[in-house]
Every structure is written in structure tokens, then in C-alpha cells.
């Protein structure tokens, strides 16, 4: 229990301390918080590894009146992903914030993107993500949804640049509408079944309009927050105009959080009553996302917008698991593949956004047409970008390859040729837009441009994230075994029981 509580209490305490202490001791708070969270997440992982899925009643009051925390393999894997990506990006953010010329000055000439305003929000975001992954109560999940959306919107608009403010406002509006749709679904579910706990709900739920109406509402609200095609309009400007460490977390973790919730609800609560056409519909939206996002990425002139549209495309892969889990024989493979894709994409996309941020710092802009010769000047950042791109394309031996291999195997074994075709085609399209950037970067520069030197920490963290993404492909059996603990397949497992 203490480890799970630690994953939430440590960042909350760190956030309050950053608020109170302002600039003093900032690096100590960061180091202490990161260490504490990694320790706590390690503790939860160890507990789940040894004892199987665990259920913690908060405050000693169990469901139905109290709130339960539920930690199974999926929870733990996502906690680990969050801890790893957030720790490395925190290191990047510290160096980025301390670096004098990260621009973002408002009309008074002062930058608003400062340590004092950043760290409390950052730790609140971390705490709310951890709370979301652990919670097993519908309403508590709504609260954590709102918490991380508000923190993300605040982080996005911290710099006060007009483009970021507009994009952040649009994100806030969309996000709040999505959360409210989810909440209405929760209200209907409570009205029908009288319980908010996921496990209890999965036992009493029956087919009928009182189930599919809230299910539709909640799924649509969460799809809005995830940015699945065609509800993705807010995503590219929001992710591209945010400060670099924030973009990395938005694309890497925040959109995965609402996807995780869709996964939880579909497979733990609604499973027997989800019609196959609903899964097909989500799969079609996912396919649309892959095609549309990739094609739009080709058209972009700015590097960060290209990477943001790449996120739109890669999110489509996650939803390809829904139609594939309709067939029992391939269900677990598809489910593992989708989740592994979320994991690999987090590392790859975070490293790509950090590398893009480094390029922006060095050149002062991120126009793709003028990136000639940047590879010679900033080899580490370009290497990080390239490694991230390899994972997105699905080339071995990256984490993305393992994920796409699992999905492809599931589609092939289930004889779903069109999903397999989409998977393969998406890989080709991804390769296309990644190579646009790499071709430019490795070209010989024709005009001399001044390239500012940037701190080593910034490039090092980007590269480390990318290398971890590749490592995910080499040690894939370990996370997959972890994922197997408490998974919703085979369906003979008593639903909801730890």
C-alpha cells in the first residue's frame, strides 16, 4: 500500500514544496522527487510481480462506498513508463528552463516560462497521471482526468506566447467537453447500477440501453481527449506550440492516459456487451488517423508540427487493437501489441520532441526547409530523432517493431487482411515523413547559419529516451510478462477479482 501511496504523495509533496520554496533548493526537490517516485513505482512493480494484481482500499473503506486502487500488470507498466519518461524529461526541463535564450518573452521582454511557475504544475501533472493509472473508481477517474487536463493546459500556456495561448485554450475547451461527456456517462451508469467501482460494475452490468448509452458517451468523451481522428483538430497546434519538454509529455503520456481509460472501461467493465461493430468502428477511426495524420505530416513546414501530426497518426495504431480483440484466439496478442505500442511511442515521441526542441534552440526556428547541415552540428539530437523515427516506423530492433509485430501477427492470424495492410502501409508512410527530415538534416548546408551551442544535458536526455525506446525492443519479453499479470484474457478469469 505504501508504495502505491508513494507514487502519488511524493509528487504532490514535491509540487507543494516547489510552490512554497520557489527557486531555493529546486534541484534538490527535483532529485528527491524523481528518486522517490522511481522508488515507489519500483515498489509497486515488485509487489505486483510477486503477488499478482493488488487491490488497495483507500482509507480502509472498500467499495462500494469507498474508493479502491487496483494495480495489475497494465497499471504497473504504465506507471513505469510515466516514471521513466517524466524523470528524463524533468532533467531536460531543468536545463531548458535554466538556459537563458529559450525565448518566449512576452511584450515586457520578460520570459514567463520560469522555474517557479513550471515545477509545481509539472509535479501535479505527474501525481494526477499516477493517480489515474491506479484508480479503480469511476468518479475518482473523472477527478484525475480533470486534474491532468488542467495541469497540461496550464503547462502549455505557461510561456504566454500567442500561438501557445490559443492552442492551449482550444485544448482546454475540448478537454473540458470531453471530461463532461465522461461525467454524464458516469452519472447514467450510477443511475442504472448503483455502483462506481469498476470491479463491482463488471459483475452487475447487463446489456441494454442503460449500458450502451453511457458507454458511448464515455468513449466519445475520452476519444475527444485522446485526439483520435476525426476529433484530432486541437492536437497539432497544441503539441507543436507548447514548450519542448511539455510537448514531449503531452504526446508521450497525456494522450495515452485517456486511451488507457478507454482500454480499462472496454475490457474490464463493458467487455461482454461491446458489439463487434463498435470495435470495428474504433479500428476504422484508427486507420483514418494513421492515413490522415501521416499525409498531413508530409505537408508540414515546421518540424514540431510534423512531429505533432505524427502523434495523430501513431495514436491510430493504438485503436487498431479494438477490432482485433473481438476474436478470442488473437485477442491477447492484439491487446499486448496495442499497449506495447503506447509504451514504445511514449519514449520515441518524447525523444523526437526533445530533439526538435534542441534544434529550435540551436537555430532559433524549426523550418524543415532550412535544416540543412544540422546533423553535423548536433549529431546527438539527430541521432535521437533518428532512433525515435526507427521506433515509429517499426524497424527492428526497436520497441515499435515489437508492438507492430504483435499487432501484425494478430491481424494475420485472424485473417484480417485489411488491418494488416493498414499496419504495413502506415509504416511506409511514417518512413516517408521521417526521411524528409533526415534528408534535410544530413544535406550539405549551402548558406552559413549560426548554430548556437546548447547544454549537453538537453541532448543527452533526448538520446537516452531514444535509446530506451530501442531497448524496449531488445528486452520485450520482460514488459510483456509484466503485462500478462491480471490481464483481461482468458475470459475464464473471474472478472475483477485480484
Amino acid at each position, binding site marked *: 500500500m505504501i508504495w502505491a501511496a508513494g507514487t502519488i504523495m511524493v509528487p504532490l509533496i514535491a509540487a507543494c514544496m516547489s510552490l512554497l520554496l520557489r527557486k531555493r533548493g529546486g534541484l534538490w526537490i527535483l532529485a528527491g522527487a524523481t528518486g522517490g517516485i522511481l522508488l515507489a513505482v519500483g515498489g509497486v512493480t515488485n509487489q505486483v510481480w510477486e503477488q499478482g494484481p493488488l487491490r488497495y482500499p483507500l482509507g480502509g473503506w472498500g467499495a462500494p*462506498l469507498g474508493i479502491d486502487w487496483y494495480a495489475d500488470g497494465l497499471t504497473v507498466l504504465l506507471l513505469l513508463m510515466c516514471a521513466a519518461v517524466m524523470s528524463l524529461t524533468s532533467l531536460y526541463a531543468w536545463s531548458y528552463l535554466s538556459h537563458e535564450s529559450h525565448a518566449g518573452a*512576452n*511584450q515586457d521582454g520578460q520570459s514567463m516560462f520560469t522555474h517557479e511557475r513550471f515545477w509545481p504544475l509539472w509535479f501535479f501533472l505527474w501525481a494526477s497521471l499516477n493517480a489515474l493509472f491506479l484508480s479503480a473508481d469511476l*468518479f475518482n477517474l*473523472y*477527478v484525475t482526468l*480533470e486534474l491532468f487536463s*488542467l495541469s497540461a*493546459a*496550464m503547462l502549455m*500556456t505557461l510561456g*504566454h*506566447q*500567442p*500561438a501557445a*495561448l*490559443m*492552442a*492551449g*485554450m*482550444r485544448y*482546454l*475547451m475540448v478537454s*473540458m*467537453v470531453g471530461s*463532461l461527456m465522461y*461525467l*454524464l456517462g*458516469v*452519472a*447514467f451508469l*450510477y*443511475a442504472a447500477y448503483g455502483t*462506481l467501482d469498476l470491479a463491482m460494475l463488471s459483475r452487475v452490468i447487463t446489456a441494454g440501453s442503460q449500458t450502451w448509452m453511457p458507454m458511448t458517451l464515455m468513449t466519445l468523451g475520452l476519444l475527444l481527449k485522446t485526439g483520435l481522428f476525426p476529433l484530432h*483538430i*486541437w492536437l*497539432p*497546434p*497544441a503539441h*507543436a*506550440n507548447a514548450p519542448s519538454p511539455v510537448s514531449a509529455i503531452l504526446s508521450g503520456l497525456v494522450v495515452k492516459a485517456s486511451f488507457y481509460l478507454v482500454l480499462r472501461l472496454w475490457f474490464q467493465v463493458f467487455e461482454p456487451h461491446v458489439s463487434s461493430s463498435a470495435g470495428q468502428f474504433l479500428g476504422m477511426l484508427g486507420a483514418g488517423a494513421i492515413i490522415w495524420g501521416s499525409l498531413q505530416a508530409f505537408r508540414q513546414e515546421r518540424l514540431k508540427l510534423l512531429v505533432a501530426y505524427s502523434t495523430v497518426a501513431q495514436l491510430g495504431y493504438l485503436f487498431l487493437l479494438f477490432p482485433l480483440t473481438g476474436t478470442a484466439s488473437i485477442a491477447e496478442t492484439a491487446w499486448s501489441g496495442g499497449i506495447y505500442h503506447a509504451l514504445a511511442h511514449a519514449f520515441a515521441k518524447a525523444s523526437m520532441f526533445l530533439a526538435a526542441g534542441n534544434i529550435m534552440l540551436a537555430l532559433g526556428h524549426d523550418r524543415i526547409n532550412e535544416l540543412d547541415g544540422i546533423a553535423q552540428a548536433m549529431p546527438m539530437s539527430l541521432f535521437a530523432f533518428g532512433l525515435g523515427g526507427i521506433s515509429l516506423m517499426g524497424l527492428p530492433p526497436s520497441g515499435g517493431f515489437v508492438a507492430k509485430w504483435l499487432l501484425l501477427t494478430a491481424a494475420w492470424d485472424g485473417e484480417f487482411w485489411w488491418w494488416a495492410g493498414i499496419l504495413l502501409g502506415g509504416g511506409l508512410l511514417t518512413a516517408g515523413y521521417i526521411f524528409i527530415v533526415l534528408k534535410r538534416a544530413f544535406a550539405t548546408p549551402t548558406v552559413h547559419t549560426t548554430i548556437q551551442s546548447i547544454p549537453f544535458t538537453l541532448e543527452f536526455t533526448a538520446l537516452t529516451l531514444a535509446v530506451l525506446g530501442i531497448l524496449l525492443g531488445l528486452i520485450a519479453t520482460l514488459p510483456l510478462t509484466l503485462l500478462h499479470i491480471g490481464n483481461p484474457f482468458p475470459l475464464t478469469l473471474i472478472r475483477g477479482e485480484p
Partner: protein
Amino acid sequence: MSQFQLYGMTGVALFGLGMYAVIAHAHLIRKILAINFMGSGIFLVLGAVARRASEGMPDPVPHAMVLTGIVVAVSATAFSLSLTRRIHTETGRSSLPRDGGT
């Protein structure tokens, strides 16, 4: 139609009205108001859900949900309003650009 059904349907109608207004109106303050409408609609629905006809005492769980929801809505509204003010200060605009972003 019983009183509770009336409450519930009013709540859902408010939710729908709010959703329409968020999409249709361009001015940011109107959008924020519309989101508050949606929230109030959901709280009405929860109030209706709280009935326990046989015992006569209402169910406290939806009441707790409404209270928490109000707190969340207040903080979200506070942030949206301050963001709207900041947008107006920095850009002079009071609505989002039509084409979906920069």
C-alpha cells in the same frame, strides 16, 4: 411524469444546449458559460439520480459527486477565465482563430 424524471430530463436538455453552445459560439466567455451549463446539467441529473423512493432519504453518493464536480468546475472555470484574460491582453482577441490553429 414524476418530479425526478423532470429533473433528469432538464439536466440532459441543459447538457445538450451547453454542448451546442460550446460548438456554435465563437466568443470565449460564451464558450466558458456553455461549459458551465453542461456541468450544471450533469449536476441536475445527479440530483435526480439521488432519489431513493422507497426509503424517502436521498442517496448521499451522488450528492458527494455533485459537490466534487462543483469544485472541479469552479477551478476549471477560474483557469479558463484567467486564460481568456491573458489571451485578450496578449493578442486583443476574444475568440479562437477559425482555421483550427496556427
